[in-house]
């Protein structure tokens, strides 16, 4: 068993009543990429934090290179040759790359000598692993992809042989993610062992050699990636069969409910983010907007929802004009039948410190149903929240729990329940399943299709191309603020990909 880089034996960890890791056994072979997959809250991050010395296991053993080691703090992990790339980067933003790499691994009390040595070592690492980055650049001036590279360099600088990456693609564009995977491939070729934690099945299939699945604190299976399938992994993660592609019938589009004409949006710097965009959404259809993040979809959504000021253009809601360039009034829009599920539920959709029941009425709190004179009718609000909890299977089913204590998927269901249960005519949804686990994704997709079948007009924005293709009746592709093409959901991924990259669209626009 010489080729085992790291082995976990019977790792157990509880936080009060929560049993986060139950008797976990895991073997990771040297020089491989080992995926760990599981839904949010399955215990992946806890397990890795134990491995990196953030937490102590209640019981169990960690064996590195055949030797049992005790990892009491990150220092011990570093000396055992374990490096970690955190989901939220552990970088000092106003330090240079070099300073960040050195931090904690400086040779001497006085920096000067160490700096020269670190610079040299960094150069060597850059060359050896093709990880180029300017050592004197400030972190805050680097794009996220490069910041992540600095995190990897930090681990390599500390001579890590085992690299743990926690949800590394969450913040990356698809192109950056591809680049990261190439880097990981190189590191593997150089003999490094990589543990990749993710909840994205595609990444597991694309890059790992072996994959272990966690569910509710338990390690339920380990498979060789080549011998398993997305369907099997999804089933293992959720514990039941999951429909990865929702069933949906033919839509029956009716009247135009939302009409956008010549909408142009500039951001605070005066840069055009949405450039003369026009489209209609009819009752009983889902129009999906595909595109690489940052091509104007967010701004488009916000302008229609009345959150962001448009420079010019018109929007008709149920045939009546909406003032998008002058006085905007999201509350009035809601009253006129427009519901909005914002892209960023943490900052726009919810107040995380509020109770579930309070978030369930946020924005509709002036509705007489929830009022008792000038006061809020707490009983009515809680009763309403409990109904939504039951209907949307929000867990834990506790209307008085602080919203921050719900998982990502359940938080998203709180927002969806709030917006959908009002019976809007037009529903605009941004990133419906971002940071949401597989089980909840299925539920959310079903609900969106139900809305369509009830005759609502749905405008869907997502950076997940699979999601757009699975749900939409028509797909509009945005690139650099413009709609560069319209396709049916049968269009191939390659065809849409070219449009999203701005290659095909220009030709089409020119014709």
């Amino acid at each position: 068993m010489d080729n085992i880089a790291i082995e976990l034996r019977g790792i157990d960890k509880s936080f009060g009543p929560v049993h986060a890791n139950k008797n976990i056994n895991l073997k990771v072979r040297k020089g491989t990429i080992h995926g760990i997959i599981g839904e949010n809250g399955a215990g992946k991050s806890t397990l890795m934090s134990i491995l990196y010395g953030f937490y102590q296991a209640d019981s169990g053993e960690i064996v590195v290179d055949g030797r049992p080691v005790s990892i009491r703090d990150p220092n011990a992990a570093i000396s055992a040759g374990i490096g970690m790339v955190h989901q939220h980067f552990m970088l000092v933003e106003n330090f240079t790359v070099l300073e960040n790499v050195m931090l904690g691994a400086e040779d001497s009390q006085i920096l000067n000598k160490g700096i020269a040595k670190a610079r040299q070592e960094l150069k060597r690492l850059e060359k050896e692993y093709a990880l180029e980055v300017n050592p004197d650049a400030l972190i805050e001036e680097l794009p996220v992809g490069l910041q992540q590279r600095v995190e990897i360099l930090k681990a390599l600088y500390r001579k890590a042989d085992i690299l743990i990456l926690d949800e590394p693609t969450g913040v990356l564009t698809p192109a950056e993610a591809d680049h990261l995977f190439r880097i990981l491939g190189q590191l593997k070729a150089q003999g490094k062992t990589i543990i990749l934690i993710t909840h994205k099945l595609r990444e597991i299939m694309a890059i790992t050699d072996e994959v272990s699945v966690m569910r509710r604190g338990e390690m339920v299976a380990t498979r060789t990636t080549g011998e398993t399938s997305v369907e099997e992994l999804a089933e293992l993660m959720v514990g039941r069969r999951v429909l990865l592609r929702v069933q949906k019938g033919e839509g029956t589009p009716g009247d135009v409910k939302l009409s956008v004409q010549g909408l142009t949006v500039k951001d605070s710097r005066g840069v055009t983010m949405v450039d003369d965009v026009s489209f209609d959404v009819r009752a009983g259809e889902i129009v999906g907007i595909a595109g690489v993040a940052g091509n104007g979809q967010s701004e488009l959504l916000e302008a229609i929802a009345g959150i962001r000021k448009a420079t010019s253009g018109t929007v008709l809601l149920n045939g009546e004009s909406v003032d998008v360039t002058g006085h905007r009034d999201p509350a009035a829009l809601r009253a006129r039948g427009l519901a909005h599920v914002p892209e960023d539920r943490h900052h726009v959709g919810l107040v995380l410190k509020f109770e579930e029941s309070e978030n369930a009425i946020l924005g509709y709190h002036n509705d007489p149903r929830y009022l008792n004179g000038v006061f809020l009718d707490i009983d009515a609000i809680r009763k309403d929240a409990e109904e939504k909890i039951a209907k949307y299977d929000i867990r834990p089913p506790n209307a008085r729990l602080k919203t921050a204590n719900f998982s990502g998927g359940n938080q998203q269901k709180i927002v969806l329940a709030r917006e959908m249960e009002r019976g809007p005519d037009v529903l605009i949804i941004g990133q419906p399943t971002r940071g949401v686990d597989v089980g909840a994704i299925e539920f959310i997709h079903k609900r969106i299709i139900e809305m369509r079948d009830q005759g609502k007009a749905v405008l869907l924005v997502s950076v997940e191309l699979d999601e757009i293709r699975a749900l939409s009746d028509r797909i509009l592709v945005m690139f650099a603020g413009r709609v560069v093409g319209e396709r049916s959901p049968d269009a191939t991924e390659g065809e849409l990909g070219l449009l999203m990259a701005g290659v095909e669209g220009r030709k089409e626009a020119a014709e």
Partner: protein
Amino acid sequence: MDFFHVLVVLLESTIRVSVPLVFAALAGLFTERAGVFDIGLEGKMLGAAFAAGAAAAVAQSVWIGLIAAILISVLLSLVHGYASITQRGNQIVSGVAINFIVAGSTVILGEAWFRQGGRTPALAEGARFQIVNFPGADAAREVPILGPIYADLLSGHFLLTYLAFAMVPISWWILYRTRFGLRLRAVGENPGAVDTAGISVIWLRYRAVICCGILCGFAGAYLSLAMTAGFVKGMTAGKGYIALAALIFAKWRPKNVMLACLLFGFLDALAIRLQGTPLPLVGQVPVQLMQALPYILTVILLAGFIGKAIPPKAGGVPYVKER
């Protein structure tokens, strides 16, 4: 020549009143750069001044006075550290509490021990700092221009004055050229980065807080052992807050800290100088207005004349290891 003479006198008193500001602002620089906000500079300085005055009076030794000042100030810093680092309490509340406790207890203890209305006994020559005269200073004074600059501006200050200004490059060197400084600045920006690099956030922040205590100790000792001969109740008179303002004005950088303190010191000196002197065009200005000038300037400067002052990102936030 008369104007030149006035200017030299003005600058000399600028230096004199700037010293406690420089010490206190540098003290704040160390903790705030490490992510612990400290509104208790005032209290630490006052406690140190009292300890210095009392110990020097009892022991008849300036050095024992200085050591007592540093000890008390470090002790108060550790209280602040315990509340805000270990117990993760609110740093503003802890700092304000220290200010109040010191303001009251110095008077009570002073009265109980010395029965002079909260003062400590006036110190004899050996129990306080003496002026350091450079060689040939008196003779050089006759030389035009350079003479008074040498004799009155460079020479003729207390040892602590020279130390205060020497602390500016020393602090810079510590913060930017040593491992301790790199880590200290890092922990004020992103303690997570420090923790994951295998360095103790808690111990690092405690060391920063101790540095702050030492420097505040010097500031307090200067007030009661050098500037005056003994402790007078409330003798810091808001200098701790002015130092805090200077720190923000200086955007948490050592050289700027010195310049900001000199500017506030200059205004203070000017206010003293102009008391009772009619100004051209305006005429007689009330004393109170002149005294308020440094504070008015603080408000104006902080309100937006300095551009955006970005504090250390993790400032004021206790570090909680969590996932």
